[in-house]
């Protein structure tokens, strides 16, 4: 098996999103995706355990879910959304194999709207096929 890079960002489509109960009885959110044929999963605990910044694991998990498109408590609504999974190489304690663990989930980078791009180039004095009025004062260069 090819050794994964120590840290990697992969843009994926979320194939499944659900709340599950862990073996220890804790509620958690699970996001699943596939990259290069490998199944990747992110687990977000929904517990009241405190985080370093004074928040809770549950609040952080919900923050992540909202960042990738969850509206209300409809976690299934995330299915089909794109997201960036940040993976870290981790050695499996049982098999000794190095595999990818999803450390963070971020919103996927988005393509810019063509009219926004056209407005930027218009501000640079370059006309493009997408006519758009330059947004005066909004372009910093």
């Amino acid at each position, binding site marked *: 098996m090819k050794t994964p890079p*120590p*840290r990697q*960002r*992969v*843009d994926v489509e979320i194939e499944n999103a659900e709340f599950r109960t862990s073996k220890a009885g804790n509620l958690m959110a699970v996001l699943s995706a596939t990259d290069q044929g490998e199944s990747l999963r992110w687990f977000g605990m929904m517990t009241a355990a405190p*985080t*370093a*910044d004074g*928040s809770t694991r549950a609040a*952080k998990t919900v*923050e*992540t879910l909202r*960042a990738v498109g969850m509206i209300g408590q409809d976690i299934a609504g995330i299915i089909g959304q*794109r997201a*960036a999974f*940040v993976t870290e190489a981790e050695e499996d304690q049982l098999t000794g194999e190095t595999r990818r663990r999803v*450390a*963070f*989930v*971020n*919103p*996927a*980078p*988005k*393509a*810019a*709207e*063509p009219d*926004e*791009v*056209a*407005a*930027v*180039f218009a*501000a*640079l004095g*370059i006309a*493009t*096929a*997408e006519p758009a009025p330059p947004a005066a004062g909004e*372009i*910093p*260069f």
Partner: protein
Amino acid sequence: MEPLRIVIDTREQTAWNFPAELATCRRAKLDAGDYAIDGDTRFAIERKTLDDFVGTISTGWPRFLRELGRMDAAGFVAKPIIVEADAAAIYAGRHNHPKVGAGFLLKRISQLMLMNAPVYLAGNTAQAIGLAWQMLRERQKQSDRKL
């Protein structure tokens, strides 16, 4: 105006959409960076969302330093990093790394500047595209003058 010939690294999945009349783009594996002029092995732009950037300069810092070292060894003239966010997002902490504060981010941005890896806070994706295109155009002009 002759369109720039830009190479986009194959790992960029949602690539910058340059206007077709200003750039023709193809995909290829770049040794460093995400966007370069076709055939240029000494200049490339690294594209980052704010979340990517914060991750890179915190937990990903040792790996990133190694990458910058490889670029220096390859004779890169500059290693610009374009972040699709503005300074206000840094101060407000609008990213998914709550332990990383604005002061730490500014420290890393300063360290990167001293390593010839300036960080540009482009504001948003569209403005990042404009800045990247201009950088690549100037690099193309510089290369043309040397021929």
